[in-house]
C-alpha cells in the first residue's frame, strides 16, 4: 500500500491469512475485512502481482508481491 492510504492505515505492508487456492479477489476480501472503514476501496482496488496489473481470478503464489494500486495521481 502507498500514498495517503498507507499513511491513513499507518503501514505500507500487511499480512493477511487467506485460504488456498489464493486468488486476487480472496486477498482484497481479506483486506476489506481487516480494514472495515476502507472495505469498499479494497473490494474495488486494482491489484498488481509482481508489478503487473492482475484480474480478480488470478492466482497468487507463495513469494508473489501483491500491491494495492489505488488513489494514484502523478504529475
Amino acid at each position: 500500500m502507498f500514498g495517503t492510504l498507507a499513511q491513513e492505515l499507518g503501514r505500507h505492508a500487511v499480512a493477511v491469512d487467506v485460504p488456498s487456492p489464493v486468488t486476487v479477489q480472496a486477498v482484497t476480501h481479506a483486506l476489506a475485512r481487516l480494514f472495515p472503514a476502507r472495505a469498499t476501496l479494497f473490494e474495488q482496488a486494482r491489484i498488481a502481482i509482481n508489478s503487473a496489473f492482475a484480474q480478480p481470478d488470478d492466482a497468487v503464489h507463495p513469494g508473489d508481491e501483491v500491491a494495492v494500486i489505488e488513489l494514484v495521481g502523478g504529475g
Partner: protein
Amino acid sequence: MNVQVTLSDGPLGVSSSSASRTVDVGAVLVFEGIVRADEGGRTLRGLRYEAYEPMTTTMLRTIAEQVGAAHEALAIDVEHSVGDVPVGQCSFRLTVCAGHRKEALAAADDFIDRMKRDVPLWKVPVWAQAMENEAH
C-alpha cells in the same frame, strides 16, 4: 518512436530532455507540472511522491509508447520526481516531439490522463502547519 523515462529524487531541474529532433519534427511540446500551495483551501509546504518500482517506470514507458503510437508522436520523454518537492517546484515534465501541433497536444493530454489513472505514483501532502488539523 523514441521513449525515455526518468524518475529522479526531489524537484526536477531545468530541462535535460534530449528528445530527438529529427527532420520530421515540426512541433515540440514541453509540459511541466508545478506543485501548488493551495490544496482544498489548506496551504501545502510541498508534496511527497511515492513510486512503486519497477512498475512505475514500466507503466510510464508503456503508456508513452501506446499514446505516442496512437497520435503519431516521434519522441516522448517523461521525467517525474520521487520524494519531497516543495511548492513552486517542478515535479513532472513531459516532452513530446511530433510532426504537427495537434498530434503533440493530443498526445500530451492523453498521456497525462492515463498517467493519473494508471501509473503507480502517489502524492502525499506535506502541510505548511502540521498542527493545523488539531487546532480546528
